[in-house]
């Protein structure tokens, strides 16, 4: 099989797994998860093969792997759809394949496969735990298996399919398809425990919020198609002179160029998908879903998809960029990105839910990438995308493992505490060593612990990119948020693992099965090593020890004459300082918090409140958008329009019609139709039927006789009329 | 000038041809007459040969059943068949009332003819054969159909319910057994790439019984069934239906059936040795083609001995057992062996040795697997056909009188 066909086949197995599980194996849990796992594994295998083949290819950017087929006839041309593996999609494919596989494996453990069914579990609610009676008569509670186990695997399989499709597709349309499928899956998965009202609301919220972005994105795609006549990356986006043309022609909206307008439109889609500032609200609520889902959504797939799209359309937004004055689109991206980074980081400071912290940190990290794209350091953004995917997946799975252990403790010691609140934890270091060390690695990577962790390199590259790009403001913002990131990461780690257990549940928390810890280890390895492929040349001491493979590989994508060189050491120093300082600070403050103590952050007073309540954005939206919408639908459309006007009209018509109909019946139908026509015609029909009846002898041979006779006659006649000349 | 040991038939043919031309016959007439003569020769020889076969078989059966067999008439009773022949010749023909005359009389002739026709395509040596038909095998299968027809005609024609039952059984049995037989015949065809019998023989550098043992086995069993001999002689199961299709036949007509059966048995061993044992192939056949004939006869007699052993040592099948054997074992097995031959034969055709070994082993493996499977699937439980009768009890009178 040629490598091109293999690329086509990458997304297929999860889709098949989805179909199989949904249609056939829904009630055999073990079969379901093995099917799903097989699907993910196959895709992973194909992905790895393709990746290493792609790495081997000489100058991949110029001649990428892939093929295309005619898909939709558009008038006289064809809308082509195809697959392509160029550097960006190659690296994306790499981390996507790994994280997805790990998440699949992890899910088996997370949903308590092999545990007994719960006493009073029912679909739509998280498992409550099952009671085990021992022979000795003692009984104790253990975790119980997820009631909708198979459904979960079906959904994440579909999710994985969508993500692979999005990665391998060579045009924005197929990407959009995968994008929307993912939107649907995230809706289903966030609302996976649909028995919880909060989960339902979160699902709807996520769906609608991302939809807002998607509408604009669709506008952008349509505009792009009408402007360039193609949605293919190479035909449309990488086609420089076309981009120049778009950049120069004005769109007439806000004085933007066409390129700028389309770029911004599509970028709004990115904002929705990867939860940038105005549309970030859905993401923290998405924590209602099971933890593997959070990891899928936040690390591996959806939000990465947003950034991936942003990277894809970078040529569009950067069209007409000369290296110094940013294009309007880039300015928007830089602004929103850096703002989101800071903003989310501040919120993350004050959250107590272990997963919410990670959610906000995700938002801020995504802000990093967007900002990096905004200041034009394309490679840095991609690099951070990869590393972030690894360590954030690691963090989420780790937090899930913590929660899982806590739940175990909660079930064991019947004190009902929230297993996700960090202030109920503490001292888990000894209870859950694997989780602790991997989480530590992840956290350090997130906060950019110097030299060893991957996060450091990518973040440093972003900082230096923004600094050398001359965007001091962006640089400062990002640096500050980096400091905060390190701080809240350390806060989280120390609250969770260090110090003394603050609850009985935490005392009895226990390490999870290898099926959950093994993925953590694997991801931890990547979280450390993924950075080493991108050590900048200009870096003191280490620079050039390992060739900066990543930079050349991805940098070859577009001709980055603008990519700034590593001139000064200021960004480096900054990143060192902020990372170490933040970590140190966090450790000092949260080293050991006694049970029931207040969060030291509260000393910040009003600021803490603001952070705690997320700047009241949700409430704002609630008041500004949702209430009015509800009011309009309630009062205006329903009460006034429906009840009064429409119903009145309809009932009037109904009454009139009724009267007319009865009159008609009395004076026309009964006398004329029934008496005259009906009976007469039926009589006639019966008579004629009696007459013709004998023809229907029921003997097949008679029918054949007639048929053949007719054939002969018509044949002869026809032949004599027309046939002779033809012969 | 051909030497005598190369091809005596041709020698004689050339001589006769010259003779007839000498009498002033036109050439094609001479050819025609020659063909007729050849056909007559080919038809008569087996019939005569059959006399010896009968003796041979009866001798062997006698030995198997631990008795002497014919040993009175002539040395080792070798003239016994002649005596029987005489008896049969002088017996009376009885045509039952209400018999359908034409089929009734046609049946014996067809039954012999269907066997003799097969001899027309069997190569006796490199050059000696009736006709080198390029579709010999399908011809042979067609002849099998004719034999079946003969039995049906007999069963229908002689207005007799046992005969009709025998005919029906014959139809069921023979049609069923034609399926695996044809498939097992396809294996040599695939291996040799030809339907012509002589080509198959010439391609057999390795006897096909090594390349396709399972097919050989199936062909052996099914062809014995086709010939309707024990253990497959339900067609004329005397204990159930008096004598089956030939109940109403007497005299020479019965003799025809008799001869046809023996000849068929011999013919299938002939076919077997031709298709699976390499026919006339053997050392020095190139120098002395006549040797091929000898080889063929030797092989054939070995196989024929097996057939007789088969007959003498196995009890008769029950009809359901017979159908089970055919449909549940032989047919799937033949399909499997056909498939594996199709898969393996071509890729390995380059290296004969490897091909032979591989095919042999795979065949055996398939055989073992399917047999064990069948063992499990077909428990040998008897179908209860009637209640067990109560044993005889000593009746009162005797008790009293004693």
């Amino acid at each position, binding site marked *: 099989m040629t490598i091109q066909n293999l690329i086509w086949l990458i997304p297929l197995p999860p889709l098949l797994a989805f179909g199989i599980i949904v249609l056939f194996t829904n009630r055999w849990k073990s079969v379901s998860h093995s099917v799903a796992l097989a699907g993910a594994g196959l895709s992973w295998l194909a992905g790895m093969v393709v990746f290493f083949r792609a790495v081997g290819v000489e100058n991949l950017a110029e001649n990428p792997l892939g093929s295309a087929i005619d898909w939709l006839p558009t008038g006289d041309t064809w809308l082509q759809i195809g697959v392509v593996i160029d550097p960006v999609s190659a690296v994306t494919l790499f981390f996507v394949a790994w994280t997805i596989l790990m998440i699949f494996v992890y899910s088996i453990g997370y949903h308590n496969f092999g545990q007994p069914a719960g006493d009073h579990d029912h679909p739509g609610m998280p498992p409550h735990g099952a009671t085990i009676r021992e022979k000795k008569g003692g009984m104790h509670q253990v975790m119980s298996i997820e009631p909708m186990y198979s459904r979960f695997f079906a959904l994440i399989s579909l999710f994985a399919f969508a993500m692979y499709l999005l990665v391998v597709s060579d045009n924005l349309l197929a990407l959009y398809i995968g994008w929307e499928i993912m939107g649907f899956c995230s809706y289903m998965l966030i609302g996976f425990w649909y028995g919880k009202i909060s989960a339902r609301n979160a699902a709807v919220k996520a769906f609608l919020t991302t939809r807002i972005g998607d509408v604009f994105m669709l506008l952008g795609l349509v505009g792009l198609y009408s402007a360039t006549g193609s949605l293919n990356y190479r035909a449309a986006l990488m086609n420089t002179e076309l981009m120049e043309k778009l950049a120069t022609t004005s769109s007439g909206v806000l004085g933007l160029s066409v390129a700028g307008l389309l770029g911004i439109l599509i970028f709004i889609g990115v904002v929705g998908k990867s939860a940038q500032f105005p549309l970030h609200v859905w993401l923290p609520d998405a924590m209602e879903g099971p933890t593997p889902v959070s990891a899928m959504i936040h690390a591996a797939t959806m939000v990465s998809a947003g950034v991936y799209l942003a990277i894809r359309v970078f040529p569009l937004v950067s069209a007409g960029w000369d290296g110094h004055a940013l294009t309007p689109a880039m300015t928007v991206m830089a602004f929103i990105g850096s703002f989101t980074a800071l903003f989310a980081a501040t919120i993350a400071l004050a959250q107590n839910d272990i997963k919410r912290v990670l959610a906000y940190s995700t938002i801020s990290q995504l802000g990093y990438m967007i900002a990096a794209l905004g200041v034009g350091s394309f490679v840095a953004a991609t690099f951070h995308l990869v590393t972030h995917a690894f360590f954030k997946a690691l963090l989420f799975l780790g937090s899930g493992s913590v929660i899982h252990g806590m739940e175990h403790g909660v079930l064991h010691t019947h004190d009902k505490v929230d297993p996700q609140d960090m202030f109920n934890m503490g001292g888990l270091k000894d209870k859950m060593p694997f989780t602790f060390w991997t989480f530590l690695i992840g956290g350090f990577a997130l906060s950019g612990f110097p030299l060893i962790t991957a996060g450091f390199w990518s973040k440093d590259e972003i900082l230096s990119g923004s600094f050398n790009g001359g965007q001091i403001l962006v640089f400062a913002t990002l640096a500050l948020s980096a400091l905060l990131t390190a701080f809240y990461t350390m806060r989280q780690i120390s609250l969770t693992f260090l110090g003394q257990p603050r609850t009985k549940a935490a005392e009895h928390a226990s390490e999870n099965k290898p099926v959950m810890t093994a993925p953590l280890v694997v991801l931890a390895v990547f979280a450390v090593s993924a950075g080493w492929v991108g050590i900048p040349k200009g870096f003191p001491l280490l620079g050039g020890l390992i060739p900066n493979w990543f930079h050349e590989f991805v940098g070859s994508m577009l001709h980055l004459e603008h990519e700034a060189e590593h001139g000064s050491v200021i960004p480096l120093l900054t990143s060192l300082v902020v990372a170490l300082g933040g970590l140190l600070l966090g450790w000092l403050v949260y080293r050991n918090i006694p049970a029931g103590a207040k969060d030291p952050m509260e000393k910040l007073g009003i600021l803490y409140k603001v952070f705690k309540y997320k700047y009241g954005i949700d409430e704002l939206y609630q008041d500004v958008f949702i209430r009015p919408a509800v009011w309009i639908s309630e009062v205006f459309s329903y009460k006034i329009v429906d009840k009064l006007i429409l119903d009145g009209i309809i009932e009037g018509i109904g009454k009139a019609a009724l009267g007319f109909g009865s009159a008609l019946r009395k004076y026309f139908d009964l006398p004329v139709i029934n008496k005259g026509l009906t009976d007469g015609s039926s009589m006639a029909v019966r008579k004629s039927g009696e007459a013709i009846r004998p*023809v*229907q002898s029921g003997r*097949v*041979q008679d029918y054949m006789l007639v048929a053949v006779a007719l054939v002969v006659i018509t044949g002869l006649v026809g032949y004599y009329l027309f046939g002779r000349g033809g012969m | 000038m051909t030497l005598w040991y190369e091809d005596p038939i041709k020698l004689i043919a050339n001589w006769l041809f010259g003779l007839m031309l000498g009498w002033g016959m036109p050439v094609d007439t001479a050819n025609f007459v020659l063909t007729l003569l050849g056909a007559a020769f080919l038809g008569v020889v087996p019939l005569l040969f059959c006399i010896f076969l009968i003796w041979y078989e009866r001798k062997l059966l006698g030995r198997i059943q631990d008795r002497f067999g014919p040993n009175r008439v002539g040395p080792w009773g070798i003239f016994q068949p002649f005596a029987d022949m005489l008896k049969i010749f002088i017996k009376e023909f009885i045509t039952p009332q209400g018999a359908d005359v034409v089929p009734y009389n046609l049946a014996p002739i067809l039954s012999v003819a269907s066997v003799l026709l097969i001899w027309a395509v069997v190569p006796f040596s490199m050059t000696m054969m009736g006709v080198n038909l390029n579709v010999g095998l399908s011809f042979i299968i067609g002849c099998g159909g004719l034999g079946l027809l003969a039995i049906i005609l007999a069963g229908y024609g002689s207005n007799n319910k046992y005969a009709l039952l025998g005919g029906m059984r014959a139809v069921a049995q023979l049609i069923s057994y034609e399926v695996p037989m044809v498939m097992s015949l396809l294996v040599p065809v695939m291996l040799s790439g030809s339907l012509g019998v002589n080509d198959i023989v010439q391609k057999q550098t390795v006897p096909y019984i090594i390349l396709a043992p399972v097919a050989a086995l199936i062909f052996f069993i099914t062809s014995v069934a086709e010939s309707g001999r024990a253990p497959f002689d339900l067609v004329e199961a005397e204990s159930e239906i008096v004598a089956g299709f030939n109940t109403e036949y007497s005299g020479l007509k019965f003799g025809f059936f008799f001869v046809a059966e023996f000849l068929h048995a011999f013919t299938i061993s002939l076919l077997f040795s031709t298709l699976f044992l390499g026919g006339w192939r053997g050392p020095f056949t190139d120098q002395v083609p006549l040797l091929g004939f000898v080889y063929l006869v030797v092989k054939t007699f070995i196989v024929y001995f097996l057939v007789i052993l088969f007959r003498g040592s196995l009890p008769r099948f029950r009809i359901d057992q017979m159908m089970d054997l055919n449909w549940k074992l032989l047919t799937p097995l033949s399909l499997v062996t056909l498939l594996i031959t199709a898969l393996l034969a071509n890729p390995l055709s380059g290296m004969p040795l490897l091909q032979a070994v591989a095919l042999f082993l795979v065949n055996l493996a398939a055989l073992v697997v399917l047999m064990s499977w069948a063992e499990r699937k077909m428990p040998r439980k008897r179908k209860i056909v009637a209640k067990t009768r109560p044993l005889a009890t000593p009746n009162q009178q005797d008790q009293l009188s004693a």
Partner: protein
Amino acid sequence: MIPLSWYLIFAACLFCVGLYGVMARKNAIAILMGVELMLNAVNVNLLAFWRYLWFTKVDGQVFVAIVLVAAAAEAVVGLALIISAYRRRNTVAAEEMDMLKG
């Protein structure tokens, strides 16, 4: 050599005899026989055309093979139908199977 016309005429005659049989016979099995005759006529035609016009290609033979298969299938199913009809209604006369009578 035999001209093609003989074969065609022969086939036509055979076909019509079969047709007559199909239309006129009472016994369903006999009808089936008629059908077989017609199919044979078709085969004769096909082979004749193959031999006279297309003997370099194999199309004619392929058609004949397919017709043979179809004939076999038709005979099997037809006979099965007849036997089951006989079992249910105890007759094989086609004109007594007239449940469709109006």
